[in-house]
């Protein structure tokens, strides 16, 4: 007895060790692991097969290769679609950034009670299936005579991304200390100068973050483009076309490129919007 207590590395002995073990959340960590594998398995499979040298989509791997990437980056159809998707992303970000900021600034001038109502209404489209917006847009475009094109799709993307931008910018302005503007005016600044030197630099990170989010939504979109883009096919439309002809290994490569693009946009957006807080 005396010998064991003397040699024990920590006082308390095995009881303490057991208690520590019990406190360690082994089971919950395992469960979270299962969920994560389930969530990411399709993506992991897709990314893995995009580097497979064989066109057969089955294990075992024949070998590592970049041939599918080479193929898509020399395919003018894919490249053109890629450019269209990027264009749509930039235009969507531009439109929603300007409208989102103006809208969010405008709503601050409205009485508190009305503000909640307007925020709720503008967030409502988030709950409406994109398909309904897409069909509605297609019908509306036909009525007013807008041809199906990438520009028509751009407007649609701006439409579905705007609520996100509006909410993100609105939330950042909600935390904005308006006495800062008073401080600027007190020091001699006009309203415009105060906006330019104080308000804008402080809300800009949130606006940029929201714009990145809008770009990611645009790149990701299939439904709106399907109904409104016509022959100006974006990346998701090209992929859909290929899926119809059977699973093609280039799909994995295109998919992986899109995955990198949208997740990095979303990641940057998340960083921007949290750094913008104060």
């Amino acid at each position: 007895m005396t010998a064991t207590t003397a040699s024990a590395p920590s006082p308390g002995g095995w009881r303490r060790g057991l208690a520590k073990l019990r406190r360690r959340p082994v089971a919950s960590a395992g469960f979270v692991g299962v969920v994560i594998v389930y969530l990411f398995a399709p993506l992991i499979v897709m990314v893995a097969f995009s580097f497979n040298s064989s066109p057969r989509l089955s294990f075992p791997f024949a070998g590592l290769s970049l041939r599918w990437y080479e193929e898509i980056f020399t395919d003018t159809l894919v490249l053109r679609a890629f450019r269209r998707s990027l264009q749509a992303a930039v235009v969507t970000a531009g439109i929603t950034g300007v409208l989102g900021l103006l809208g969010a600034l405008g709503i601050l001038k409205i009485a508190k009670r009305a503000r909640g109502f307007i925020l709720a209404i503008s967030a409502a489209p988030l709950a409406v299936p994109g398909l309904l917006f897409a069909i509605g847009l297609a019908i509306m475009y036909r009525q007013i005579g807008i041809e199906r094109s990438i520009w028509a799709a751009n407007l649609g993307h701006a439409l579905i991304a705007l609520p996100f931008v509006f909410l993100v910018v609105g939330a950042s302005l909600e935390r904005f200390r308006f006495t800062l503007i008073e401080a600027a005016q007190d020091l001699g600044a006009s309203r415009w100068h105060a906006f330019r030197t104080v308000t804008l630099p402080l809300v800009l990170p949130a606006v940029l973050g929201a714009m990145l989010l809008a770009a990611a939504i645009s790149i990701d979109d299939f439904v709106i483009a399907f109904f409104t883009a016509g022959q100006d096919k974006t990346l998701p439309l090209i992929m859909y076309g290929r899926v119809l002809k059977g699973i093609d290994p280039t799909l994995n490569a295109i998919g992986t490129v899109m995955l990198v693009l949208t997740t990095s946009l979303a990641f940057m957006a998340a960083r921007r919007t949290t750094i913008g807080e104060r």
Partner: protein
Amino acid sequence: MSDVSRYTEHPAIRLDGVTKRFGAVLAVDDVTLKIEEGEFFSLLGPSGCGKTTTLRMLAGFETPDEGSVYLRGEDVTLVQPNKRATNMVFQNYELFPHMTVFNNVAYGLKLKKVPKREITERVNDMLEVVGVGGLGKRAADQLSGGQQQRVALARALINRPAVLLLDEPLSALDVKLRKRMQLELKSIQETLGTTFVYVTHDQEEALLMSDRVGIMNEGVLLQVAAPRTIYEQPADDFVADFVGTLNELTIRIEKVEGERGLVASGDQERIWMDLPGGGTVGDIVRLAVRPEALQLTPRREWDGSPDLSHTSGTVSDVIYLGPFTQFLVNSERLGRMLSQRVSDAEAAAIRPGMQVIVSWHPDTAFMLAGPAADTR
């Protein structure tokens, strides 16, 4: 602005019948006030008394519904904040978080198109004056509370305002730093000679720093006077109670000798009071005495000085506050009384249950519910 003599002709600030309503709430009620050039003036009152609204009307953030605001004789009632020669130190400092300390302080000078070299010089000088020299390159959101406070002061003072407005600038600091900043603010004000209008709800702070104090409650300016007058000759019950703890004694006059009244002349009881307007036997009066004016003497050591007002009682509680000790005394005639004194050996000798004589000099007591307003 170049004519210096104009400054001396007019007070720095004149409020003339200024009234401000927010909906049905009367925030500021017919306030008339003059603040002299170079004065350290405090607006003191509980939260919601209208002191901050008054300050914001001086800055131009609020427009009075009635009345006028004059700055060095000029009517600025409708002038926008960016066109007024006032600058403000905000309660939460409101430093621009995306700028360096230097750019925060330089903000006003840049707007005035001051040459770059002069800006650099003046900003660095001002940072020295307020005690944060060398912090110019620091981001404004990386400062401690005390440093932010100093930078906010520098940012306002560098514009050489006719009047500096301070909205509870020390309320966010811890006690120790607050005490130090009170003295520093006072000394900066004396050095620069700028008129300060200081809003606070802390009566100690107002009494310590100000040349004159204006006390507000429910939108009304109750008394404007020097700190000593406010404390020793408060205009009414509210002022008396707000600027310090009071013992309120309700007393029936039993004898009148000229302008003095006497209550309960006895072996262990004798209370004198001034009756400037004369008085009648049988009148019920309310007398107030500050706790620090009350002396406690163990009953057996009482020598019976006839000139002191005194009454007998029993110590019920002793409250040790560090530098001070407070005593709760139950007096047979006057009820509960609070006495306060420096924590010395004599204070330590007084214990709960002890029979004591509570005494005070008649001059330290004042009548409540009297007029005696002192408005310059």
